[in-house]
């Protein structure tokens, strides 16, 4: 899938982001916070913005690309409006998180790491989210669902449709 970054539509965010870059210019180690901000504001890392970071912080694109591909939280394509994260930490795993992930995958018709065609949902297999005492856990955006059972999935997803 091709995604186009609309500069016009994101005008305000770009101005704010430029200000942020400006404030980081003279601090040590500005690349990670800048990438994190871009991911946060735009929902992914648009090439145009990476080029801006490169120019403003005087860091070669190759290096930025190297860093951005290393960390799993950065993405070069937009994620769906609702991000479903299934925790696959040890506690969730021993309590059947794998079958919950499979259930969500089959209901949405996509695999972990993918986005539905209508861009409403994307699924991510998450690293331990630290809610082990209420395992198994899934997150939809920032909402935490505790002690999830396979039967609960339809109802949970319906809330976000």
């Amino acid at each position: 899938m091709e995604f186009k970054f609309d500069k016009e539509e994101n005008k305000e965010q770009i101005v704010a982001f430029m200000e942020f870059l400006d404030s980081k210019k003279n601090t040590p180690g500005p690349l990670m916070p800048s990438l994190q901000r871009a991911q946060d504001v735009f929902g992914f890392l648009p090439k145009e913005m990476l080029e801006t970071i490169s120019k403003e912080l005087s860091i070669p694109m190759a290096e930025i690309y190297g860093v951005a591909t290393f960390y799993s939280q950065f993405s070069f394509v937009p994620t769906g409006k609702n991000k479903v994260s299934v925790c696959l930490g040890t506690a969730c795993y021993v309590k059947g998180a794998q079958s919950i992930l499979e259930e969500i995958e089959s209901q949405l018709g996509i695999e972990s790491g993918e986005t539905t065609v209508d861009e409403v949902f994307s699924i991510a297999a998450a690293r331990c989210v630290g809610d082990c005492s209420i395992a198994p856990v899934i997150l939809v955006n920032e909402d935490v669902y505790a002690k999830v059972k396979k039967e609960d999935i339809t109802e949970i997803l319906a809330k976000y449709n």
Partner: protein
Amino acid sequence: MITKEKLFEIKEKTKPSLVEKLLEGDRVEFRGDDLVLKGEYYKKQVRIALKNCDIIDPTDIDEYIAFDGYFALLKALTEQEPGDVVAEITESLLRGRGGAGFPTGRKWNEAYKFDADKKYIICNADEGDPGAFMDRSILEKDPHSVLEGMAIGGYAIGSDQGYIYVRAEYPMAVKRLEIAIKQAKEYGLLGNNIFGTGFNFDIELRLGSGAFVCGEGTALMESIEGRRGMPRPKLYRTAHKGLWGKPTIINNVETLANVPAIMNKGAKWFRSIGTEESPGTKVFALVGKVENAGLVEVPMGMTLREIVFDIGGGAQDGKEYKAVQTGGPSGGCIPADLIDTPVDFESLGKIWSIMGSGGMVVMDENTCMVDIAKFFLDFSVDESCGKCVPCREGTKRMHEILDRITKGEGVEGDIERLENLSKTVSSTSLCGLGQTAPNPVITTIKYYRHEYEAHIKDKSCPAKSCKALIKYEITDDCIGCTRCAKVCPVVAITGKVKEKHLIDQAICIKCGACYDVCPVDAISII
């Protein structure tokens, strides 16, 4: 600027009404002079790092001060020389709670002795072990204890800048830390000229971006500097040449949360708790198939049995307890017959596991040990940074072997191949991730070799968990209610109403839906 008098004033103003309010809530009680959480679950616990958790409001600095918060910093800055602070921590024998157990005092002393124009102290809050949330709780529920510990550490080694490296997966912890740092700055407990002593100390938050390896000290520093989080070869001690080439101390969240208590109550008091070589307490995240899951903080040296059974209430749903896994992907599985092992750095090392950061995952009879080893290897394969060959390639090959064993395609010699690879990977990897990645395999082979053999030779999974090796069958108990036939996603079940049903093994995908739905337990796994 905050003064000694002002700090006392806040404490005296806040404490009485706070204590009254807490006692009214009926969740806390006095144990000696300390307020502790009420209930059976907390009786055997001794809380130092967690002492304020679930008691104070973490967004209100006054409540932290009410229970002697920042008094340790005051004492250090106004009554002690940096060398005294280092000596006190050394004397306390506090050991790193991140897992390795390196003596904190010795670490600090290295940086203290080393002369440089700039030094850094980093709090490692990149808690990535699956099944562990000790640090997260401290950061969310008592963030000031970490800030205070860092400021004391900064004073001791002569640093004016601290960084907290937090996982991005912990948004609430980040929020609480931001609030806490802001409040501490407003009060002048961080910033310039703290308590009018001329000591300056500032803390900046840095976020991880989802790379487990960044919990490794040198990888963490690479990440802060803005590069791929790949570990550095250890040519220098971090305490001499760390972040931006300057002397740097990296301490874990729980370690730092212990520091104010030690400064307040003294090294002797600290050493009176726990064992001789591992004094103090340790926080564990007791999770998995255990009745009472949650955070426990107990004196070092308590046995696994006391933790899992007396506090945790044993395995869930009356199942048989099988093993407990400590140390996450770097640790090992401890079998039921070693449950009387005391939990401290040395004892766990002797039985091939590690203390780790404190994850303690309980497993029952339905957990397949080969599958668990595969689960951890899968994690290590994913999180290996790729810099050194043994870790990048070795873990992948090990995972492939484990994968085929769980699928019933294991071949003669696979166990030996795994043992061989384990040796190579652990002895030749660059950093801790690779060096410890084979541990889950080594321990499961050591204690559960028969399960591996059953998978390979008999093509069966004793825990009845590996899909490829099990079969669902309907027994004579079937009452013909048809529920299983309705729920089957691939229409593999046939049968007439009120007659025994049958599963067509050629169609069955082993999803277990029929097993879950049967009202009379007439479906068995073989």
